[in-house]
């Protein structure tokens, strides 16, 4: 047992931290602070993503045959931490979740067309799973695709299709067997976003992150874009969701804001002339956050390590997701208490503290307890897969 990164891995981390520090120019930060381009899609975002691709980082853990570097999943995890720390809205779903699934399951033509572009940072893929009446119970989704003359004819609507406003494709879950209303009748089709019949309506959210409702009205997509086999989409969805869960609760942004709040409390003088950090209660809040974030960091490291051994246990992925998402909420509260009323000032306000980041983070954090697989379902998975308790209706 050795709970520590190697010297080479530590060097990689340092290199990446410097790299992203230089990449996050003031202009880019301004673009990413603007509500319409917060989650990417702006000109500087696109330029930067291409730069990251050109510098070979997107392919870090990809196989050599695709032009990747075949780094281990632990190296990839270090990369993830450093990107998250930098605040760049890196399209992990495209590069690390959907991308590898395409490489494994797509038609050769589609692979040849799309994989090189993913690795060059030229395309982004949105995910279309949820519908207005299919969220946690995803297998009941109704958007349908009918096979006609070597094409798929798609009709239906999706909710929470984030990034659809600028993505190049939508990774769409559709019902291809209309006789089966459960998970056995589902397939995945990669829909080019410029197809006729797609329309997009923005949904503005509490955390200022834009997401979308997307509508599919007789959209025609070539059969080559069917990923894997017809009616076998469920396995692709679940394996993709397991990969997604890890990047959702990455501890890096919390570590960053914790260290920024610590420094702020060291520099700030209170009305009794002491530094804020000398107060017992402030030390207590900071220690609580440190204690919790350390556990989260280690849960993530352990999972990344388990993935390199191909031993990722389903229950453990859910542990990190539930713990991380609920701890973020608690941690932001504890940190906001340290800042006091000042923590309510937004990044747009004068006198804001630390760029108003906590004011934004607390609003964004509520999404994670239900997004990416709601925590009740994760707890069901833990009791079943981790504790071998009986599986029954909910």
């Amino acid at each position, binding site marked *: 047992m050795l709970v520590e990164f190697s010297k080479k891995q530590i060097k990689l981390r340092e290199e990446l931290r410097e790299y992203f520090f230089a990449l996050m120019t003031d202009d880019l930060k301004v673009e990413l602070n603007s509500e319409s381009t917060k989650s990417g899609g702006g000109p500087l975002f696109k330029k930067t993503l291409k730069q990251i691709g050109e510098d070979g980082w997107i392919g870090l853990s990809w196989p050599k045959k695709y032009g990747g570097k075949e780094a281990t999943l632990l190296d990839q995890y270090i990369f993830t931490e450093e990107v998250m720390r930098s605040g760049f809205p890196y399209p992990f779903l495209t590069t690390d979740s959907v991308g590898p699934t395409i490489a494994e399951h797509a038609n050769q033509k589609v692979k040849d067309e799309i994989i090189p572009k993913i690795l060059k940072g030229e395309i982004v893929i949105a995910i279309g799973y949820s519908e207005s009446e299919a969220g946690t119970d995803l297998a009941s989704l109704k958007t349908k695709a009918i096979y006609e003359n070597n094409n798929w004819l798609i009709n239906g609507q999706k909710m929470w299709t984030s990034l659809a406003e600028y993505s190049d494709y939508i990774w769409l879950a559709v019902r291809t067997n209309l006789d089966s209303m459960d998970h056995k009748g589902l397939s995945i089709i990669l829909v080019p976003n410029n197809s006729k019949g797609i329309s997009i309506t923005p949904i503005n959210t509490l955390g200022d992150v834009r997401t979308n409702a997307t509508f599919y009205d007789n959209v025609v997509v070539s059969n080559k874009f069917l990923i894997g086999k017809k009616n076998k989409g469920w396995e692709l969805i679940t394996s993709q969701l397991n990969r997604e869960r890890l990047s959702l609760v990455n501890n890096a942004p919390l570590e960053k804001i914790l260290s920024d709040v610590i420094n702020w409390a060291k520099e700030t003088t209170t009305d009794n002339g002491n530094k804020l950090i000398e107060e017992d209660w402030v030390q207590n809040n900071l*220690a*609580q956050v440190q204690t919790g974030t350390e556990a989260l960091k280690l849960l993530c490291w352990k999972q990344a390590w388990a993935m390199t051994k191909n031993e990722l246990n389903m229950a453990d992925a859910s542990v990190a997701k539930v713990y991380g998402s609920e701890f973020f909420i608690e941690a932001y509260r504890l940190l906001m208490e340290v800042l006091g009323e000042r923590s309510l000032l937004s990044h747009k306000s004068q006198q804001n503290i630390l760029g108003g980041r906590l004011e934004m983070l607390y609003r964004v954090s509520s999404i994670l307890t239900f997004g990416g697989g709601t925590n009740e379902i994760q707890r069901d998975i833990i009791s079943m897969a*981790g504790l071998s308790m009986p599986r029954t209706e909910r």
Partner: protein
Amino acid sequence: MDFSLSAQQKDLVNLTLKVLKDQSEKANDLHNLDTAFSSSLWKELANTGILGVNIDNEYGGSQLSFLETCLIAESLGSFAVTTPFLYTTILADAINTFSSKELKLKILPKVVKGQSILSVGIKELSDDFSSIPTLDFQNKELTLNGTTNYVAFAKESDFILVSCKYNNKIKLILVNSKSPGIKFSKLVTTTGEYQYHVDFSNTKINQDLFFSKLSSSDDKILNWIMNRMIIGICSFALGINETSLKLTTSYTSQRNAFKKPIASFQAVRHRTADCYIDIACLRVVTEQAISSIILNKEAKEQVAIAKIWCGDICHRISYACQHLHGGIGIDKDYSLYKYNLWAKQLELSFGSSKFHLRKLGKLIAEN
């Protein structure tokens, strides 16, 4: 990065569990509190080499690392059994690492054979309000005066490790527990673990039993021992909590209500899932602390963080498991109550969560 155990380490865990299982089958009750600990279990732990796990080959031990000590502690925890294992082996490890050859030869072979118990009376390990004993040098004689509290197995041990003050420096000394001038008052603890309030009154101290010269401070060795004691306790707590949860999932899977096992109710499953998450967290922070200790780091933050988790989850899990069991959980014919008692003792021993949060908070402020 490697979170795995070697084949040899897994064998050691299995061996320890087998000894415990065999002993509990033989005795029906591993330990009934009429004695400080089960001497037949202790003998068996010695026979199988478990007591010498962290002691050098030349003194009869198997020269393994602190990780192995923790693996054994976790196994002992899973049986909620009271033994002087952690105190004896961690102090033996300290003697093995820091003492003179004479002292090693005097103490370690006996420890390995199960013939000698060692105890730890370090004031810094508790949040007791009494002041630390003092060491005086007069007429060419060293004498110890003062008290140390909550010393487990002090009277049963051959040597007690005491931290004391000498010329404003912290000194660690091994006190022969049979020396004149020592008074033991037995405390009745919640788990029944034999603990003592120990009074030293002009107790003569032999310089051969020091870790270092009289003039030098033992701060570093003190930190070395405290880190290991606290993380040893966290490992023991892993065994306590894992088994509490195992008893609970197994009981709720058999117990029916409304014609269904109660484990099939979402409310029950979610409560156990939260326990599972808590244990996963204690496990990783303990693993990190063990790793830092083995790498000889100061590990102050890592150790505090592990003990905070230990205190918090001992509290949460023991009450969740009691609750989910209902009445049978409090019946002393069923074993869960022992885990509950130990959980509370571990939560508050060697510094509560608040005590360590305070320590960690100070480290954050000072760094």
